[in-house]
């Protein structure tokens, strides 16, 4: 039974594609919260809009719907009160829109650090209020000490703060504080042309630029009831798999490097560089930024492009099996990764954790298969799933996905159709669209409303990291502080994609 059929009095909204959206009353909203808390549905997004909040859910049968609740006096019943994965999303709504989740367990601001010079920038913006020091969660017990880390870290990574409380070497709690790279992307998108908004989407998380561009383009195309040409769709998938491959290769080496096994890092970095050079040769940019645009793609594969890609596929196939063997047979490395940083399958399911974080802990979800968008609906691939949920499992999921991506790239090249690269876009009146795309770290959700003139009225981008970051806190418990970088790298959550 579909999600909305369960809710009495749900008012369907016209012009929302491809999945339905409905306005629900308080009883309907509470029904949804109960279904989430009971584990029947999965929370896939929760965001603010003018005068209301939207919730994207995935039902028991995998059907997708958006529920809208009109805020009364700027309030809505808290989802986080009964369903913890919603807590940070609600805190973000409170920071950006000023709406109050009634009954919420955690009233602290999330993205707003008190220095914007404005409050509730996406709602009824008000003047800045006096800056209140941020209070971390209390800890009790004997012989505890705290270690504050960040926002500036020792390596070349993104900024965020981690507050460790430890007993000796053992972490009893880590609390994340994020929002440092909040750039106000959703505010910049409001009123922007599609071209400008697409550029912003492409820079939401640079490592997933293709996935974001594709998700944004697909949401716009769904809203405007357009189809990108077949060749463009295949080229998008080609770029998405190159992106996945480059990131996974980089991650596998980087995880090993954080266990002080530099040889693997050196070897996978060579493979990653070869992949990026091929991307540049084929699409004019190493990360393929701005190559996927609403309506199609901006760049075609050059005449020798297929040859370039097949050459690096051969390169990777030659070296990679030996590296896997090296990973699997180095006892000192296994000692660091096996049973370290365990995500319990229950948490992965409850949080709807996507990507290798979820799949390493038994959550069998991949947007390429579960949402099944073209061209993956006609391609053959496996979705690897493990149960252990430790660093080792997250490495192995990546290893298997590298193999799958190589096979997908070959299938795409074999089937690549000829034809146009882009269809023209023209305003078709106000409309709404949403899309999921599987980035290397998990599913990206883009929700988009266009105004009558074809400009962006509201766009929400939800990174997979929203449902993975909280699990880092759970996974590190009872591990030693020195293993935190290893655990964190094995998650490789996005800061920029989360902070927006």
């Amino acid at each position, binding site marked *: 039974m579909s999600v909305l059929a369960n809710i009495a009095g749900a008012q369907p909204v016209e012009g929302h594609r491809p999945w339905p959206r409905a306005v629900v009353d308080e009883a309907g909203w509470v029904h949804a919260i109960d279904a989430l808390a009971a584990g029947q549905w999965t929370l896939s997004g929760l965001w603010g809009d003018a005068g209301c909040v939207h919730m994207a859910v995935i039902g028991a049968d995998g059907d997708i719907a958006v529920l809208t609740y009109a805020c009364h006096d700027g309030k809505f019943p808290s989802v986080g009160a009964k369903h913890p994965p919603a807590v940070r999303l609600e805190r973000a709504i409170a920071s950006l829109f000023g709406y109050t989740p009634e009954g919420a367990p955690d009233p602290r601001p999330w993205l707003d650090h008190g220095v914007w010079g404005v409050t509730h920038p996406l709602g009824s913006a008000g003047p800045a209020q006096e800056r209140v020091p941020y209070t971390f969660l209390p800890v009790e017990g004997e012989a505890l000490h705290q270690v504050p880390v960040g926002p*500036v870290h020792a390596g*070349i990574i993104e900024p965020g703060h981690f507050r460790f409380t430890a007993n000796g070497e053992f972490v009893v709690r880590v609390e994340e504080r994020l929002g440092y790279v909040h*750039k106000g992307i959703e*505010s910049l998108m409001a009123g922007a042309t599609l071209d400008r908004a697409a550029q912003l989407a492409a*820079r939401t998380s*640079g490592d997933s630029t293709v996935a974001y561009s594709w998700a944004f383009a697909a949401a716009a195309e769904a809203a405007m009831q357009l189809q990108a040409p077949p060749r463009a769709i295949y080229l998008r998938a080609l770029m998405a798999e190159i992106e996945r491959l480059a990131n996974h290769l980089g991650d596998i080496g980087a995880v090993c490097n954080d266990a002080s096994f530099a040889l693997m890092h050196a070897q996978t970095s060579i493979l990653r560089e070869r992949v990026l050079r091929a991307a540049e040769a084929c699409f004019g940019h190493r990360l393929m930024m701005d190559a996927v645009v609403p309506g199609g793609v901006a760049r075609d594969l050059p005449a020798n492009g297929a040859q370039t890609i097949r050459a690096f596929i051969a390169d990777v196939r030659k070296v990679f099996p030996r590296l896997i063997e090296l990973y699997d047979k180095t006892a000192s490395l296994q000692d660091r990764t096996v049973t370290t940083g365990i995500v319990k399958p229950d948490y992965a399911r409850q949080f709807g954790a996507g990507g290798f974080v979820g799949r390493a802990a038994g959550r069998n979800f991949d947007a390429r298969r579960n949402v099944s968008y073209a061209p993956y609906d006609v391609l053959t691939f496996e979705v690897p799933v493990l149960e252990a949920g430790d660093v080792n499992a997250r490495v192995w999921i990546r290893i298997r996905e590298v193999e799958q991506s190589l096979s997908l790239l070959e299938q795409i090249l074999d089937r690549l159709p000829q034809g146009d690269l882009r269809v023209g876009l023209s305003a078709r009146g106000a409309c709404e669209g949403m899309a999921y795309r599987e980035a290397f770290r998990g599913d990206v959700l883009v929700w988009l409303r266009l105004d009558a003139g074809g400009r962006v009225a509201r766009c929400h981008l939800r990174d997979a990291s929203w449902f993975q970051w909280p699990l880092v806190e759970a996974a590190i418990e009872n591990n030693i502080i020195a293993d935190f970088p290893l655990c964190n790298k094995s998650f490789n959550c996005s800061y920029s994609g989360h902070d927006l």
Partner: protein
Amino acid sequence: MRRTLLESLTTGALTEPAPAPDRAALAELAQSLERAARARLGRSLSIRHVDAGSCNGCELELHALANAFYDLERLGLRFVASPRHADVLTVTGPVTKNMREALLRTYDAMPDPKWVVAVGGCARDGGVFAGSYAVAGGVNDVIPVDLHIPGCPPNPRALLAGLVALLETAGARKR
């Protein structure tokens, strides 16, 4: 493991010749450096990096500088973990208001003489994020910048060319 290591010894180096210093960057730097500072540093610079709000694209390319093809350290350039050990601060991203203070504190923690390299289009003027309520501006709006390396993101060759230019000027031979 032994096979992999042995093969690396016999297959020749992947490392490519370093690019010539970026001419434009050289001109920009010539104005910002003093002779006294040059003499002190020799031909080696320690770099501390701060992401002040980037999308992470620039960080990926900075990471690539360490791979076998570019091998940054052979040029006497290395990334260090603390600003107190650093001569050069590389900064990416538009500076978000939430990162402004952390950037200032990092800069203040570095000993003199020091140089600031703004990496990428956002670091110059905020790039596509300019004008947001959450963005303080380019790096130069917060701390003085000695060199810009353009690009979105700059590729490793561009990064290398910019840093080599810095080395040529900042680290010009000790006598």
